[in-house]
């Protein structure tokens, strides 16, 4: 009683339609928390090494956060886990909304699916009963339509996770949707749900979620909320373009405080960073080959944060989030209600394809959310196709008559529609850039920008080399939510962990590219902390407040009654991270094969723009990072003694 976890998981075998409730020992929670940690524990132990990601042996798990429902804030995220069909590696995707508490309200910390159903089904859990229902009437409907049908059937309080039409068509860049526009998009796990013929998971539980010391949880939450409400005067959104320009030209920078980002996120959402990112060189442009000169202020003005904010009717808060970076928008004419496009979607469908038409971004964002296709990967694949066309590798004959030129909005919209419906050229592109480049050939792999098959997010690792480290070296490659220099500055972990380095008050940009042990420690600290946080179900934007202002470690102690130190918790993060890497090794992955594409590493440095002359030598950076975890310096594989030390069997 009064534990933050439910102590049980549900294992559903879709092949024979059996459902088994299993108790998980307390010791597992103490070693891995729940969320991503529990997911990694179950998948590592139960999935055979040669499991085909699109076969019956792959296990797909919906894992709620360890702190979800305990009275903590920013802790409403759930993690979708499975073997990624896109990368062949450990796969996970993270999502907010209301689904994480719903899993616990049903009495489980996680729900796993194995096997393949012979016909479309959906899982319904209510009042302790678990049922698989026929989903033939839902198959073919997009994610939002499906959610509406299911909520009509089961009531508005039902929490649902659904695949759209892209997941049904086993597109390797599809995800799992919930709350009419939230999507666990990365790692292509929507395809796993699609091949399993699992259309939806519908949860209607009311079980209470406990905490060891609820009063302490509330006290800590109020302390955190004070910082969320910390007032910073903000100017019109357009000013950030100028700030970005300044950051591009200045040779020295200072560590950034997440309070500023908190304020931007609160006012505009993630889209507040649009112009800033383009100007300072954080956002890749023209399929990672362009610079701010290709997408100057006259173009980026069209995706100014204020223009997006003008369409916002009301803020959208995920469960337990006082910040509310999301929004419900209505654009003129086309939409009555649509989720506000995120920074990643805006830039992937905008600058990366040289598209400056905001209306088309809203349109595509909604279309992709309905189809359940990853906006980052869809934009990246469209940009790749455009470059193929511009270079003559694809012709109008291949593109079904589409003139795929940079900035041709109409052609781009038509292309992405084809990717969603898997028609013609769209079928070729619907599995992401690496698969497409493999089919197209003719050297196109050179500009298929990916790490291990995953299209990286809209943060250029030539600008912040930390991104390139995590894109290349994480067990789930190509991901931007695990670490970067900027994240380390904002997490302010050194305030709680005395052995971690504190950044200087002023440092040159050049120093970020120097390869030394500190870089490895910083990157490893980010990975451990984010693995821990993904186990706890924490939102990265909350963590940007800084470790003293958002009391993650203290919440964990108050929720459990444990008396662990921040160092002990970082060890849990390290264990989760190592387990994911061990999963990859077990499944035959060579960590070195996941390095970022050479263009994005700057092997041929850019000749102009913010990242002129910048390159990141990942071959030299990797050994130091791997060594921080006790993984082999040359191969990146966890050593026997490391596995033994962390009690990984």
């Amino acid at each position: 009683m009064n534990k933050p976890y439910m102590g049980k998981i549900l294992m559903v075998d879709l092949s024979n339609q059996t459902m088994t409730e299993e108790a998980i020992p307390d010791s597992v929670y103490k070693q891995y928390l729940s969320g991503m940690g529990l997911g990694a524990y179950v998948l590592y132990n139960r999935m055979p090494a040669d499991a085909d990601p699109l076969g019956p042996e792959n296990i797909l798990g919906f894992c709620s956060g360890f702190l979800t429902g305990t009275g903590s804030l920013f802790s409403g995220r759930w993690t979708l886990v499975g073997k990624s069909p896109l990368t062949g590696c450990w796969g996970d995707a993270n999502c907010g909304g209301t689904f994480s508490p719903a899993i616990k309200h049903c009495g489980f910390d996680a729900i796993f699916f194995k096997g393949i159903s012979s016909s479309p089904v959906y899982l319904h859990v209510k009042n302790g009963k678990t049922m698989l229902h026929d989903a033939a009437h839902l198959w073919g409907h997009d994610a939002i339509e499906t959610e509406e049908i299911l909520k009509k059937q089961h009531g508005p309080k039902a929490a649902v996770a659904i695949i759209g039409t892209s997941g049904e068509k086993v597109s390797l860049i599809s995800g799992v949707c919930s709350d009419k526009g939230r999507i666990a998009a990365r790692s292509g796990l929507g395809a796993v749900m699609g091949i399993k013929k699992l259309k939806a998971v519908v949860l209607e539980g009311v079980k209470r979620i406990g905490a060891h010391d609820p009063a302490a949880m509330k006290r800590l939450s109020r302390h955190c909320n004070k910082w969320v409400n910390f007032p910073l005067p903000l100017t019109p959104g357009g000013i950030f373009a100028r700030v970005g320009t300044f950051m591009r030209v200045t040779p020295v920078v200072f560590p950034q405080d997440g309070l500023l980002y908190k304020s931007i996120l609160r006012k505009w959402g993630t889209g507040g960073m649009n112009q800033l990112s383009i100007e300072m060189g954080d956002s890749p442009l023209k399929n990672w080959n362009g610079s701010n000169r290709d997408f100057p202020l006259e173009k980026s003005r069209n995706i100014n944060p204020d223009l997006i904010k003008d369409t916002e009717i009301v803020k959208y808060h995920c469960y337990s989030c006082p910040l509310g970076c999301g929004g419900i928008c209505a654009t003129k004419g086309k939409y009555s209600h649509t989720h506000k496009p995120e920074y990643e979607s805006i830039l992937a469908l905008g600058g990366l394809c040289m598209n400056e038409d905001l209306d088309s971004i809203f349109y595509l964002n909604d279309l992709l959310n309905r189809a359940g296709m990853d906006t980052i990967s869809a934009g990246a694949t469209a940009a790749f196709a455009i470059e193929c066309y511009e270079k003559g590798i694809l012709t109008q004959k291949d593109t079904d008559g589409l003139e795929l030129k940079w900035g041709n909005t109409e052609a781009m919209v038509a292309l992405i529609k084809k990717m969603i419906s898997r028609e013609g050229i769209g079928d070729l592109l619907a599995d992401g850039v690496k698969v497409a480049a493999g089919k197209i050939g003719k050297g196109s792999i050179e500009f298929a920008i990916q790490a291990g098959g995953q299209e990286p997010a809209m943060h250029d690792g030539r600008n912040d080399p930390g991104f390139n480290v995590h894109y290349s070296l994480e067990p789930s490659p190509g991901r931007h939510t695990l670490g970067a220099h900027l994240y380390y500055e904002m997490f302010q972990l050194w305030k709680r962990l005395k052995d971690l380095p504190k950044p200087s008050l002023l440092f040159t940009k050049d120093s970020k590219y120097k390869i030394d042990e500190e870089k490895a420690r910083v990157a490893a600290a980010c990975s451990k902390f984010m693995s821990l946080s993904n186990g706890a179900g924490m939102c990265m934007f909350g963590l940007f407040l800084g470790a003293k202002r958002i009391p993650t470690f203290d919440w964990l102690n108050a929720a459990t009654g444990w008396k662990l130190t921040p160092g002990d918790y970082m060890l849990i993060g390290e264990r989760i991270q190592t387990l994911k890497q061990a999963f990859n090794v077990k499944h035959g992955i060579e960590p070195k094969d996941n390095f970022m594409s050479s263009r994005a590493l700057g092997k041929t440095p850019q000749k102009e723009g913010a990242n002129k002359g910048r390159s990141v030598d990942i071959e030299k950076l990797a050994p130091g990072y791997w060594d921080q975890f006790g993984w082999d310096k040359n191969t990146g594989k966890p050593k026997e003694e490391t596995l033994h030390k962390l009690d990984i069997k």
Partner: protein
Amino acid sequence: MPYAITEKCNGCGACARICPSGAISGEKKKLHVINGSLCIECGACGRVCPQSALLDAGGSGCLMIKRSEWLKPELIMVACMACSICVDACPVGCLAMSELPRNNGVDAFPYLKDAKACIGCGFCSRECPADALTMTKKDQE
């Protein structure tokens, strides 16, 4: 400790109808039982039972209260942080986040969307980290 039904039960079924977790079962006009593993101790059964046949989690008897006198959540807008924990805490789904902003801004806030469905359990108030919801008796209008 879950709630329990005593021999006083006449099998009217009022408790089973209101129970949000489906924990109560029994045939009409026969003694009903509570499945302890499903009971969430919301107390709704105790408030509707005309026979005072329910024992609460502490083993004390429950008294029937007129539904119009049940406590309902009231929002202290300035304290609310819009985290939506209350909306999720409600076992019957009578709270919702507003579809329109407050203070001419864009911030959402929770409101009692379906007052008739409220069972007065107070989970919303209890789980609110900011103590922005109080359970009060609504004035009869």
